[in-house]
């Protein structure tokens, strides 16, 4: 979707303002936001792709006014409601009212080191051989799906070169919507500054994205 999250090349947000001696967390609620988000993710009820889509589906005014942990929590509330664990009235009232859906699994403290050290690999075998090879010229598709996609707007309809052929990976455009993993080969595709940003682009700039095969056409 052409949501507020798709920020590449946008202007007007001001300076980056890197913080000197930045702490890991700026407040205790950020610690809990991280931990609660990961612990709830471990319920196994939604995928990382679905959670990304919940974040980018927040209203743009909300998204831009929020810190990233706030974005996480607001999206988590959406996911918890969507999957029947928590009702809107409970979140608004700040206390549980109904039992809700029973979880298949709950993350216990003893399992945390193993679960975090294992992560969630999303490479998958793909039967078909890769359609493109290193050095191939490709053009990214210029599509504007209303659902989740990982092809950023600034890199749509652009001419690029395949730099690396990666493994097969779960296809986020379907996986985010419960329509299956449908793995595809992923490619690292390079674009030069002029192709992306016109005559004003930095002539010594190369930007790469990692693109699923169906984001690409031969050029």
């Amino acid at each position: 979707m052409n949501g507020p999250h798709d920020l590449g090349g946008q202007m007007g947000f001001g300076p980056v303002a890197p913080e000197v001696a930045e702490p890991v967390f700026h407040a205790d609620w950020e610690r809990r936001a991280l931990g609660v988000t990961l612990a709830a993710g471990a319920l196994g009820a939604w995928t990382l792709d679905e959670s990304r889509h919940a974040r980018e589906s927040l209203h743009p005014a909300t998204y831009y006014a929020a810190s990233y942990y706030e974005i996480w929590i607001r999206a988590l509330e959406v996911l918890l409601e969507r999957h029947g664990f928590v009702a809107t009235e409970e979140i608004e009232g700040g206390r549980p009212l109904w039992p809700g859906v029973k979880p298949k699994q709950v993350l216990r403290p003893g399992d945390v080191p193993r679960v975090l050290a294992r992560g969630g690999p999303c490479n998958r075998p793909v039967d078909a051989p890769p359609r493109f090879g290193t050095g191939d010229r490709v053009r990214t598709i210029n599509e504007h799906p209303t659902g989740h996609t990982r092809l950023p707007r600034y890199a749509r309809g652009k001419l690029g070169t395949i730099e690396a052929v990666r493994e097969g990976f779960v296809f986020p455009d379907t996986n985010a919507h419960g329509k299956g993993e449908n793995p595809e080969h992923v490619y690292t595709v390079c674009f030069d500054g002029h192709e992306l940003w016109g005559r004003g682009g930095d002539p010594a700039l190369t930007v790469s994205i990692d693109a699923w095969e169906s984001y690409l056409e031969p050029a």
Partner: protein
Amino acid sequence: MTHDHHHPHDHPHDNELDPFAARVRALETILTEKGLIDPAAVDAIVETYEHKVGPRNGARVVARAWADPEFSDWLARDATAAIASLGYTGRQGEHMQAVFNTEDTHNLIVCTLCSCYPWTVLGVPPVWYKAPPYRSQAVINPRGVLAEFGLKLPETTRIRVWDSTAELRYMVVPMRPAETADLGEEELARLVTRDCMIGTGLPLRPGSLSPDVLWPATGTAGTAP
């Protein structure tokens, strides 16, 4: 807890904490009472990313690459396995790629679409990495971004920006600083900052070692627990 933290720069997104802190607490309470999360598991997750997993990991990877050409080759070829050999595996580091700075090319990592970041080697990302200014500008005006970090590269230096749009996670391996031939791996690791592994900085020089401020992102820089 907000009174424990001061903000040396203007971070408007992070100043209005209190109403949201209550909302997070309420959500945690609801989930706990419903048996959906275990607060002790939440504690263990926080402990992991506040004190165990951080840029020290990545610094050890870079130092090993500087010290050991065979490891460096392995890191270039199969970063996930090479990094795993040092014990760093897991969430947001499942599929790693190390990218090496050269005399001609400087690498910079970004995620324009969300906040993808190599957690296993760098920990959780800093606020600026996840915020709109960096995400919007890194791909169109990387030299302007680098200048904000005090890094001015020659105009002829190519800049390669890696937008982490899929599940590959990138880390930059900076060039080994001059006059470090006699340093061991542990000393080399102390020159490797978080920012130089994102690409927004360069490694420290041997004379500028200041261990107390090297690891601001590991929670030792005056943050109240």
